[in-house]
């Protein structure tokens, strides 16, 4: 009897030991690899901060300047006449700009025509159109004082270029050169006074001669 009782007791002890070893190792394993807890992956508070990014390409670039102008064009032999036109400039840097112009004018009567009473040009030939491409240089940037306390940014520039003048029935290769004064009324708005010489060859009086045609214009321009 004692022997089978001992047998039962010993086997119970063995079983307990084995079970406890198995259980503890299982618990240890569970502690080492804890099951993912759902709450950790969900953020309880969403911070309401949006990052302020800087988009440099969004900044308004104003390198172009559009001008409308009017004034007087003194056509050699044909008197001084009204001129009207438009210009478009692209500012390469603060010193240099490229400019395209297109303008219209009309020739008056020359002294020869007045004296003889015979017109040497038809009305269509009297119409003048010129266009050109020029390079300008801002020679004297600075401030102009209107009163003691009111000043405007301004610039004196030199300009020269090449183009075409359609006058007296044909195209004429034309050089233009001169200068101007730009007064900035606002950052984007400017007033211009320009003096230019348009030089082309003319053969209306049967001999080729170089005509110097001085032009004085007032313009209003906007940067965009």
């Amino acid at each position, binding site marked *: 009897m004692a022997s089978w009782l001992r047998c039962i007791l010993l086997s119970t002890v063995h079983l307990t030991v084995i079970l406890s070893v198995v259980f503890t190792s299982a618990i240890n394993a569970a502690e080492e690899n804890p099951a993912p807890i759902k709450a950790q992956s969900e953020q309880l508070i969403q911070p309401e901060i949006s*990052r*302020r*990014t*800087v*988009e*440099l390409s*969004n*900044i*308004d*670039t*104003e*390198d172009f300047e*559009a001008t*409308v102008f*009017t004034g007087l064009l003194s056509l050699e032999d044909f008197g001084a006449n*009204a001129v*009207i036109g*438009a210009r478009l400039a*692209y*500012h*390469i*840097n*603060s*010193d240099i700009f*490229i400019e395209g112009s297109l303008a*219209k004018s*009309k020739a008056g009567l020359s002294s020869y025509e007045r004296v003889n009473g015979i017109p040497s040009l038809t009305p269509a*030939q009297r119409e003048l159109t010129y266009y050109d*491409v020029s390079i300008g240089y*801002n020679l*004297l*940037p*600075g*401030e102009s004082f209107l009163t003691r306390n009111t*000043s405007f*940014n301004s*610039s004196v520039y030199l300009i020269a270029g*090449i*183009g*075409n003048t359609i006058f*007296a*029935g*044909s*195209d*004429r*290769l034309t050089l233009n050169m001169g200068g101007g004064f730009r007064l*900035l009324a606002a*950052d*984007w*708005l400017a007033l211009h006074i320009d003096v230019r010489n348009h030089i082309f*060859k003319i*053969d209306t009086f*049967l001999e*080729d001669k170089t005509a110097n045609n001085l032009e004085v214009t007032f313009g*209003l321009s*906007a*940067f*965009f």
Partner: protein
Amino acid sequence: MIILMRLFTLLATLLIFTISYSAYADNLIQEVKVADPFLEVHTGPSAGYPIFYVIKRDETISLIKKRTNWYLIKNAKEFEGWVHRSQLVKTLTLEDEQIAIKDLSREDYLENDLDISMIGGNFGNLPMMTLSGSFALTKNISTEVSFAQILGNFSSRRILGVSLIQQPFPDWKLSPYFSIGTGVSQLFVKPTISKLKDTTDFAANVSVGLKMYLTRRFLLRTDIKKHIIFQSKDKNEEVISWQVGFAVFF
């Protein structure tokens, strides 16, 4: 002339209204933090305009607009003025991250689609000027529309053309190109030379040229072109032209 004057007034008014309307759009203004020791604020967009204000490091400024290499800025105290790009190179975002305010470079040129060129030279022995605009279809191929004017003592000619340009090595510093084109040639004879008449003919051309990146938006461009003008006379007119000039890319 009266119609022209009215048109002029209308144009001038329109110009002022449209541009003043879009002068300050808030979404275009960017806020940055100054990283340089100080910023020199000029009254205008050129070094020739006087410095009237100085902004210290860590101040927040708004970049309102840009003209050539100058930025119109405003600080918290509402002082407005112009700052050169070189002083903004180290500028930070409001989160203290570096942003690069860079000038245009050769990389921008290689990615450009559109350029406008103005070149001039000789057509036969007469002066020639050409204005053209080209649009890139692929990295190597582009199309071009051009207007050329040849001004002689007895006649003048205008050639309006379209062409296809192949640039085999766009990455090269001196990059060659080849083009073929077609167009219309108009010849105007001066009224004093009454025997000849004005004519309009079809024309074709082939050319070889070179493009070279200079700086910022600029390219140097040169071109040798053979023109064939299909005249109604027995013989076609063949003329070789050469031109040099520059191009601006956008």
